[in-house]
């Protein structure tokens, strides 16, 4: 009985050793993945910062104004003026009358 317990304990120790060994390697692998992700995030953030700067540069008011002036014949853009504010009743809503008032039979079309 005693020897059986001893051998069982030895087997358990060996099993645990294998488990710890594999866990260690899995942890190392996860750390490496996390580090790579951090690097990727950092480079993505750097890229985003550059894109934001470029967006701001391309949208600078001076450039937009010049573009609007260059393309005036096509776009006819003008600076916002007080006259462009309108009242809600200036909008041409469609009339209340429906264009089709007679009921249409659709059953016989097989729909």
């Amino acid at each position, binding site marked *: 009985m005693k020897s059986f317990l001893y051998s069982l304990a030895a087997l358990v120790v060996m099993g645990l050793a294998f488990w710890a060994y594999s866990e260690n390697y899995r942890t190392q692998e996860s*750390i490496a993945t*996390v*580090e790579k992700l*951090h690097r990727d*995030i*950092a480079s993505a*953030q*750097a890229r985003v*910062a*550059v894109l*934001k*700067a470029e*967006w*701001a*540069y391309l*949208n*600078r*008011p*001076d450039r937009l*104004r010049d573009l609007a002036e260059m393309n005036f014949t096509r776009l006819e853009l003008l*600076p*916002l*003026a*007080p*006259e*462009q*504010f309108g009242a809600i009743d200036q909008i041409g809503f469609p009339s209340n009358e429906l264009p089709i008032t007679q009921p249409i039979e659709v059953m016989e079309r097989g729909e």
Partner: protein
Amino acid sequence: MTEMRTPLRPLARVLGAREAGENPDWIERENIRKRHEVMRDKARHMAEGRLLVLGLFFLAGFVVIGAQMTLLAVSEPTEPRTTATTTQIVAQRADIVDRQGRVLATNFDTHSLYAHPKDLVDPAGAVAALIEIFPDLDGDRLLADFTGDRKFLWIKRKISPEQKQAVHDIGDPGLLFGPREMRLYPNGPIAAHVLGGASFGKEGVSSAEVIGTAGVEKHFDEYLRDPANNGAPLQLSLDLSVQAATERVLDGGMRLLNAKGAASVLMDVYTGEVVSLVSLPDFDPNDRPQPLVQGDQSDSPLFNRALQGVYELGSAFKIFTAAQAVELGLVTPESQVDTQGPLRWGKFTIGEFQGKNYGPTLSVTRVIEKSSNVGTARLAQQIGAERQKEFMRQLGFLEPTALEMVEAAGAKPLYPSKWTELSTMTISYGHGISTSPVHLAAGYATLLNGGRKVTPTLLKQGRARLGEQVVSPEVSKASRAMLRRVVTEGTASFGDVLGYAVGGKTGTADKPRPNGGYYDDKTLTTFASVFPAHDPKYVLVVTLDEPLETSSNEPRRSAGWTAVPVAAEVIRRVAPLLGLRPEIEPVEVQGITLTSSE
């Protein structure tokens, strides 16, 4: 206990002693002594053993701690690799954005170029190739440096990726690159004076400090560089599109009117937020010019006319005199004031613009409308020096503004050290006191928002920041009505913008000569306005330096012909951008009832 316990009085020895005629007590005593000796030895042995064990524990403790310390001392420091937090790569300096989050200043990764001349393979060839890439380099000096004793040499502080590639292609191992974070102002000269600029501080091969040199960049230098903010941008109260439109209109007005400079301040009347702050001529903060080494600093494009320029702003101050007189109950807007000119005071004469005469009397409203110096001076006489000075202090005209720019503290208003009765009279119409346009805008905002003190700020505010009550809401309303009359009937008739009910006051001040006296043909014209006058939202101050209107035979230099139309155009362009829709001004019922009740 291994040995047998010896009895204290062994009968055999006691009997023997008695027979021998000895005292048997001695035997007992001896036995007690022996027993005590044994006990003592045992106790000592035990104590020694305990001490030894304790000593071993201490030794083990010291060894463990010492070993750990040695280990820590000799090991290389490494960052913890397994932190769960998301590591943010934060830029060295936070961005600056406008009130809608549009970027005003950001960072850009570039490279610096330096050389280790000892490692150069072909110094002459490298110099020739570098000159080709950077034509501004001094070839002879570079060659001397490359072939001399130097071990390290900066060649360029900032180079573009294309230039870096070109230098890389030279292929000389002595030419090296270091990373550099560069401050970028994507909008160019827009809001240049507010932003200021940045430059490199302490420089190393692998990085360089970016420090602010002027404007908000310098005022908020520590905040922008604080890593604790985790890269959160600094949000200003400026609005990029409003700022751009104002600069555009002001630049056009400055050219049309042949002015040498222009400035404007647009401020929210309740929060004190500066929505646009313009000073022309301006500069590109990406390539900040050097300060002038000679001549007048106020001629430099770096000079912020809206904040640093303290000028006598002229008649725009008259409304403060009128408002104070009404506030003190000395007059009502309808009271008649003696305007018979010219007004003599000692050897001084106070006359009207272009020698006009508005006598014999005008109502207070008409004094403001016509901009009568004599009428305002008479009101000031009634107010008195003490009360006027206190009122000017309450409106903030005697202190530098609290605007969050490094230049603000330097812009101290100029006013007479002795506030005499004559000073009172001249200050009542804006002469003898010099303030910046930002001061004037803050004063107008305070007077017209219902009379609560406003502190100008460049940071976006969530809600109104109103201070003490300076004038009553009724006086504030009356002042707005008077200013509206100036536009509808008086000197600022070009200032009306349909739908925005502009109210405002003109100011034309002759420029002072550097050595005393005033120029006859150089003026500084101001239009301080509020819109809409019946429900104030914004205050706009426009100032033109030495304008000249030449559409007729007679040259005109007054504010009504120069600053007013420019300000009107600014309002026309900017008010829609601010989200104000044009509306029909309510009819002034109060005025009618007042006159009919008299």
